[in-house]
Each structure stands twice: as structure tokens, then as C-alpha cells.
């Protein structure tokens, strides 16, 4: 019988192990640093951080929690996509199937739904934290702006997801929401001054959002594509800009007096 350290040692000498981890970890200053910048995920972080970053009191970890919720939504969302057709004939029954046919379909859908609510809540709290610590002040003005866009995108991600089950809740929430588009000044057919541009229900903002004058199959397809592809694409890119700027603006803000 070999002892555990012996086995560990042997595993660590194994070619496959070495190819993955490249070097041994010995808990030296050098290795701790190497652990961070040698790893594509960890190197989002600097090698060292100020104490308040690990103390929760300052940031509450809220930005990180928002990002974690986002990752969870991507994972559960991708799995949901395997079971879903964005057409009005199938969408609703696909969701019913999740409930009754798909193994763990219910919890998958629940995680996606509650995770989405959760992300909206925590992103607002993150913004509140950043405001309360005055962390939008120089040199972080731009990153605050990136954050505001991310806030809007978070709302829109959730909003576009609302329609996908094609049930009464989503249908009417989207109807109410997009009717606002019809009220856009100049560009919505019910908005002020739109008559000067010859705007009708068939060429206004709402029509562009829905791909029609009513919420129907085109609207479902459009919201699906916004929800699953277009907005996540933009949001992901902006998140990396956001993280990059946190680093470049000098890391988590510290008291400047």
C-alpha cells in the first residue's frame, strides 16, 4: 500500500498532470503570484489586493455576485435552449415539457427564472454600493457609465426573456412594455409630432421591436434572438471592459482624501 502523499507525488509527476498545471505549487510568494497570472480566469485579479477586497464590508462582493448570477444564467440558459423552439406553435408546449418530461427540467427552469430576478436585484444593490462609496468619482467616471449600460442591459435581458414561454404573463407584459414604443415622440405612431413624419402603426418603433403591428410569431423570434444572442454578446463584451477598467483605474477604489 502506498501512502497518500506518495500517491499525490506520483500523480504530480504524471505527464498529463504536468501538461495541465505546468508547475508545482509550493506556497511561496512566487508561486502564489504565478497561480494568479498563470491562470486565464484568475488573472482577472491583480496578484495582490488590498485588505478591504477580502473583507466584504466595502464592496459586499456585489459586482462579483452579479457576475456569478450572469454565469449561472448563461449555463442554465444554454441548457434550456436545447429544449426550446422559438415558435408560437411549440414554445408553450416546450415549457410544459420541461415541467413534465425533461429530467430536472423544473429545477432548470426555476434556476433560470429565480437567477434572473436575483441578478436584477443584486445589480441594483451593486450600483447603490458604488454610489455610496463615491467610487464613480475620478478616475472611475467612465466605468460607472459602462456600469449604467450594463444595468440597462440586465433589465433588457430579463425583459426579452419574459416573452419566451409564450404564456399570458409574458405576452401581456411585453404588450404593455412595447406599447411604450408606440408613444415615442416623433417615432411612435401615438407619440407627439409623429404625424409630421407620417408615422403609422406599420412603420414606427413598436413595429420594429415586434416585427409586426402585434405581438406574434415575429416578436417571439425577435425577443428570443435579443435574449439569447444579441444582448448577451454586448453584455459580455461590456463586462470585460468593465473588469478591465476596474483594474486599469487602480483596482477597487480606496479612500482618497
Amino acid at each position, binding site marked *: 500500500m502506498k501512502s497518500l502523499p506518495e500517491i499525490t507525488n506520483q500523480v504530480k509527476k504524471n505527464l498529463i498532470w504536468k501538461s495541465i498545471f505546468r508547475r508545482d505549487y509550493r506556497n511561496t510568494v512566487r508561486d502564489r503570484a504565478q497561480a494568479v497570472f498563470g491562470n486565464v480566469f484568475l488573472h482577472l485579479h491583480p496578484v495582490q489586493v488590498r485588505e478591504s477586497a477580502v473583507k466584504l464590508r466595502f464592496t459586499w462582493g456585489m459586482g462579483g455576485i452579479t457576475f456569478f448570477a450572469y454565469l449561472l444564467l448563461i449555463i442554465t440558459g444554454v441548457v434550456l435552449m436545447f429544449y426550446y423552439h422559438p415558435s408560437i406553435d411549440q414554445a408553450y408546449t416546450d415549457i410544459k415539457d420541461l415541467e413534465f418530461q425533461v429530467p430536472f427540467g423544473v429545477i432548470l427552469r426555476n434556476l433560470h427564472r429565480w437567477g434572473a430576478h436575483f441578478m436584477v436585484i443584486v445589480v441594483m444593490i451593486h450600483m447603490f454600493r458604488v454610489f455610496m462609496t463615491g467610487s464613480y468619482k475620478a478616475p472611475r467616471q467612465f466605468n460607472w457609465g459602462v456600469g449604467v449600460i450594463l444595468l440597462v442591459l440586465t433589465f433588457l435581458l430579463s425583459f426579452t426573456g419574459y416573452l419566451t414561454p409564450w404564456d*399570458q404573463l409574458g405576452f401581456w407584459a411585453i404588450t404593455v412594455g412595447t406599447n411604450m414604443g408606440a408613444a415615442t415622440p416623433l417615432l411612435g405612431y401615438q407619440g407627439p409630432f409623429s404625424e409630421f413624419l407620417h408615422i403609422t402603426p406599420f412603420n414606427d418603433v413598436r413595429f420594429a421591436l415586434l416585427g409586426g403591428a402585434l405581438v406574434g410569431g415575429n416578436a417571439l423570434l425577435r425577443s428570443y434572438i435579443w435574449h439569447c444572442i444579441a444582448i448577451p454578446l454586448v453584455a459580455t463584451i461590456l463586462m470585460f471592459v468593465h473588469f478591465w477598467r476596474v483594474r486599469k483605474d487602480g483596482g477597487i477604489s480606496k479612500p482618497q482624501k
Partner: protein
Amino acid sequence: MNPFIEIITQPDNIAIVIMIFMVSFFMVWAFQQAFHNDRLLAAGLPVDGENDKFVDTFKPLVRIELIIALVVMVGLTIWSIAVDAPLEEIANPTLTPNPAKAPWYFLGLQELLVYFDPWLAGVVLPSLIVVGLIAIPYIDINPKGNGYYTFAERKWSIIIFSFGFFVLWLLLIVIGVFFRGPGWLWYWPWQEWDHARVVFEPFRDLSSVVGIDSRSLAGFILGAVVTGAYMIGGMVWPYMYWKKNNPEFLTQLGMVRYITTVFLFITMMSIPIKMVLRLVFLIKYVWITPWFSI
């Protein structure tokens, strides 16, 4: 079941209950740290985190991130096991629910529809919220309170932001979720929804208060004068005030920032003003024009 319990335990409303708890918790925590730092500042001591040392990212930070991730994951899993996401009847364009509510985070905006026409409540004001938020770092020229919690050093910015965030955004959401029933009428959570209920309130327009038809030329002019006086007065008065009491601040602020700040502020304040006008004085519109009404 008690209608109050029923309404707060509806699956989608549980999120709002969670939000209320989380927001309250973090609000208290933020202000508590702010007042704590204020005491330190008053005593001339360094604020929290000012003398922070550096620690390694690996493992202290990575460890705490992992713990948070696990806690969040466990929490969401429990939530997902305990509560099922509802699925209503299949979409039916001929069957309009009453009330038809937007997603909860937009209910503050839907609530504004009570007080403003859709082009304002649904388009102009939301756009200005986004623009206004992005503008904050550029119009707040107070260099203090950067990177630490404090209230004393930036009272006004915190009061104004908190009013917008807690009252105009979150409180209106809570009202929209829990207090609005059929016909968007006010219902206490323990009241039964009554679909036949109509409330007749004799709303009038501002000019009809003084006996002028709001759709006549005189009414139009009166409305224009009142609206214009609010906008122009709102733009000019702070200027005069600061000119007299704090001219230095005005110079530092500069014209562009001054106009942006004050415009955003009076637009924001028009919301509570219109609420009072409607709820207390039963006034619907201040100014009616052939193209739009305010």
C-alpha cells in the same frame, strides 16, 4: 388564505420580498458605515480602509469568492427547489388580463403612467434616468468621499440619489407589485380585488381651477406660462441663490454642468410634484396642447 399572505407568497412576488429584505439590509449597512466614518473624520482619524495593507489574491481572495459563489448557489438552489416558476395559460391576444402588469422592475415606470402620458412616462423619463445616471460622475464635482462610505462629506448627492433610488424607483415598484389591482386602482394587500369597481374622481386641469377651459387658447397660454415658469424658474432660481450665497461653487461648476444638473433635478422633482397635484388637488394636466399634454 389571508389575501396579504397570498399576495406576498405568489412565486414571482417572492423575489420582491427578497429584494425588500436585501435592499433594507444593505441600506442600513451602508449608512451605518457612512456614519461610522463620519465620526472618524470628525475626530481627524483615518477612515476604514485608509491604511489597508496588501494581501495575496491567492488564496485569501479566491477563497472568499469561492465561498460567496457557493452560498449564492446553495441559496438559489433552495429557492428553486422550494418554489416553482409559474406558467400561466397559453398566450391569448383576445383575453386581456386586468391589470396587465409589466415585469416588476419596470413597475415604477408603469406607475408613472398614472401621472404622465406614455411618451413621458415610458420614453422620455426612462431615457433621462439613464442619461442622468451616466452624468452623475461628471456633474458631481465634490472631490470628497471618494472611495469610502461617508454621509457628512456629500450630504446632498446622497440625499438626492437616495430619494431617486429608494422612493422614485424602489417604492414605486413595491406599490406597483403589491398595491395595484384591476384598473390600476389602489388595493391594500388584504383587500379583495373587485373587477367591477370604478372610481370616479372629478379630475380637472390646472387652468380649470381658476375657471378657464384648459382646451381654450387662454387655457393653453396659462398652461404654457405655468410649465415655462416651472422650467425657467427652476433653472434660474438656484443660480440666483448660489450667486448670492456661494458664488465660488457656481464658478467651479461652470455653465454646462449647471444647466445639466439643474435640468435633471427639476425633471426629477416634477414627478413628486405631479403626484401631489393629482392625488391632493385632483389636477390631471398642467398644460394641454394639440400635440401633447403635461
